[in-house]
């Protein structure tokens, strides 16, 4: 092949790769800043000074700035519409495919029971024929029933296959459908939040109230737009799944490194321990380094996008088609320091007020003393009272069946105000029951996925209003919503340093009494802020604590020990603080077998892969009996293990 041909082939191959790589939502939203910058550049070229030369943006007069804005507005609006359509085009395609799939599934779900009914009748008919033939045989007649017996066997096989498909096949497919649907919602979230981020500087672009996106049509009274859920909700769930995969991969790599430096003889026990952990993590990590890098970059980007999403999703209202007022949000990029201006403080206060108003509407909270329990006296609430407050009978045990319901009820009970709910989450006794429910529900593979939504809600709740209240107090806004312990430490350090500087100033000989008083006031103010920062950090810790406990006990131990350097006793402060022990404590909680633990620890796609397909699920009665016997044996062992673990937790 000639050199020029090779070059040409390679150039087109590189172009193809680039085109292929740059498809999708990421390309659409990543391009916004550059395209807006281009628009601004060309609009600026048309605004010229007296010398006929374009004026740099920083030197524009107010009048010229207005002129620039007006010149750009139609083009910015067009760009916004184009981007919106690109997103719609990408996601609509998937929605169509999903719809068509779901229709097929629905048709089967409707048709198969009819087929089963028909088959059962046919089987009864064949059986009757066989019986009649057998009676003839008994009377000495010679009748060949082999054909009828074959027909019966075939029909029975067909019936079994139809039943298996209905009971196992269709639900399995529906799970995969739900997972794909949720992912598509997350893609839409990516797009919408990308628009909010990309156009945040242009106040006339109102993404939140764009009917096309928000999907609510006042006249028609139903959703027609892109979003079927609160923006950010699906993406937030997806980020959580992705972060878990990344964490598992990182943990696996760390263990692998540690293993390399260990002595096979001296560190034998540790090596065994690491190998066991690695074997477990191996199923849940990302093995391909490139896929890991891509997911890491993408998750970081998605987390950035989520800063433009409302805090507390209100799924029920959206699903019911009710009008959802999104709370006012700050669209500024997250701040890196504490330079809170008075304007920002006013904006934050406004946002918080709007948030409170929205929360009041969405939860129908009763902010009066009419609530069933006096919110101010929650310290005296015992776990059994806590359950009766939620409408459960006294002595109700927490088990696999009701734990998720209790949590749902706790979050949604209209008779309990958010104020009381907030107190419950921090009340030692109530928190104990909530954690117990989270632990129990979290271990149940059957409710695993739905439980994650509930857990997320509680986490959002624990993190949201509590954090918001405290953050408002310290003058910081929603941009600190995702702050971790380290960031809080840094914030605290900033104030500490500032206080040190002020204290140095106090020592100056030249200081006037007025100046001294003013500095002392500032120091006191800063000290008060530091106290609030520490409160916020404590709330953050509680939220993480709930989240982690609800997921995995073992990981909770690692989490608490490593992240906070706490001792074993600090694992469950609620138990330390109270001696209350009732029937709702987990003494009656059913044991959890290893398979269930394994399933809870699996990431979503793996959990689905691990479910038996309808084809494999058909077992002979003998096999089923064997499995049941084995299961009982395992349960006995696990019960003993579970007791040990429980005791360990109570130390």
């Amino acid at each position, binding site marked *: 092949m000639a050199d020029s041909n090779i070059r040409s082939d390679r150039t087109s191959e590189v172009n193809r790769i680039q085109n292929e790589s740059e498809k*999708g939502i990421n390309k659409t939203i990543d391009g916004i800043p550059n395209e807006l910058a281009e628009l601004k550049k060309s609009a600026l070229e048309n605004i010229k000074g007296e010398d006929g030369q374009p004026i740099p943006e920083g030197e524009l007069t107010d009048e010229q700035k207005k002129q620039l804005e007006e010149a750009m507005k139609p083009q910015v609006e067009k760009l916004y519409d184009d981007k919106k359509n690109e997103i719609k085009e*990408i996601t609509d395609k*998937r929605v169509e495919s999903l719809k068509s*799939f779901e229709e097929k599934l629905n048709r089967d779900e409707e048709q198969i029971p009819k087929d089963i009914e028909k088959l059962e009748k046919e089987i009864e008919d064949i059986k009757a024929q066989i019986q009649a033939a057998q009676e003839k045989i008994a009377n000495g007649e010679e009748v060949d029933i082999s054909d009828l017996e074959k027909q019966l066997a075939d029909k029975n096989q067909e019936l079994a*296959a139809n039943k298996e*498909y209905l009971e196992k096949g269709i639900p399995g497919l529906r799970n995969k459908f739900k997972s794909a649907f949720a992912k598509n919602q997350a893609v839409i979230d990516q797009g919408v939040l990308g628009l909010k981020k990309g156009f945040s500087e242009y106040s006339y672009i109102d993404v939140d109230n764009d009917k096309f996106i928000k999907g609510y049509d006042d006249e028609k009274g139903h959703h027609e737009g892109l979003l079927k859920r609160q923006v950010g909700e699906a993406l937030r769930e997806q980020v959580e799944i992705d972060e878990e995969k990344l964490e598992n991969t990182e943990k696996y790599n760390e263990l692998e490194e540690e293993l390399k430096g260990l002595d096979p003889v001296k560190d034998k026990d540790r090596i065994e321990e690491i190998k066991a952990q690695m074997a477990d993590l191996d199923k849940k990590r990302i093995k391909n380094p490139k896929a890991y890098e*891509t997911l890491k970059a993408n998750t970081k980007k998605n987390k950035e996008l989520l800063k433009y999403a409302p805090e507390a999703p209100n799924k029920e209202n959206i699903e019911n088609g009710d009008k959802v007022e999104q709370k006012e949000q700050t669209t500024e990029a997250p701040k890196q320091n504490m330079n809170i201006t008075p304007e920002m403080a006013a904006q934050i206060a406004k946002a918080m007020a709007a948030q409170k108003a929205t929360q009041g509407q969405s939860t129908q909270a009763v902010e009066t003393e009419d609530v069933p329990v006096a919110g101010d006296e929650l310290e005296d609430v015992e776990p059994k009272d806590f359950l009766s407050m939620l409408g459960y009978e006294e002595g109700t045990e927490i088990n696999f069946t009701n734990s998720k319901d209790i949590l749902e009820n706790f979050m949604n009970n209209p008779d309990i105000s958010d104020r009381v709910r907030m107190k419950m989450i921090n009340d030692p006794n109530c928190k104990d029951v909530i954690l117990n429910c989270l632990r129990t529900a979290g271990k149940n593979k059957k409710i695993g996925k739905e439980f994650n939504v509930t857990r997320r809600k509680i986490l959002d709740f624990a993190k949201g209003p509590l954090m918001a209240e405290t953050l408002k107090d310290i003058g910081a806004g929603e941009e600190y919503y995702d702050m971790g312990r380290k960031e809080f430490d840094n914030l605290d350090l900033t104030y500490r340093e500032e206080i040190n500087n002020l204290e140095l100033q106090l020592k100056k000989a030249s200081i006037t009494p007025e100046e001294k008083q003013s500095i002392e006031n500032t120091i006191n103010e800063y000290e008060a802020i530091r106290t609030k920062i520490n409160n916020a950090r404590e709330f953050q810790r509680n939220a993480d604590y709930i989240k982690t406990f609800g997921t995995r006990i073992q990981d909770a131990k690692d989490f608490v020990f490593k992240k906070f350097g706490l001792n074993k006793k600090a694992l469950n402060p609620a138990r330390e603080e109270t001696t209350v022990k009732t029937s709702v404590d987990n003494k009656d909680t059913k044991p959890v077998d290893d398979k269930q633990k394994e399933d809870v620890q699996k990431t979503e796609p793996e959990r689905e892969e691990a479910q038996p397909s*309808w084809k494999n699920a058909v077992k002979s009665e003998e096999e089923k009996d064997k499995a049941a016997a084995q299961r009982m044996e395992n349960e006995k062992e696990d019960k003993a293990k579970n007791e040990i673990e429980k005791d360990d937790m109570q130390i």
Partner: protein
Amino acid sequence: MTVEEIQSRFDELDKQIVQIDNEIEKDLHSDPHLDFINSLKQYVNKY
């Protein structure tokens, strides 16, 4: 439906949903810049 028909129906639907899921996954998790660099590296290594 016969056993064979059910088998084929299940396979067809399973294949379809896996394909849709893969496409969405690509939309959701692709980083165009990183993908491009990775693909380009592969291409360069190939030659």
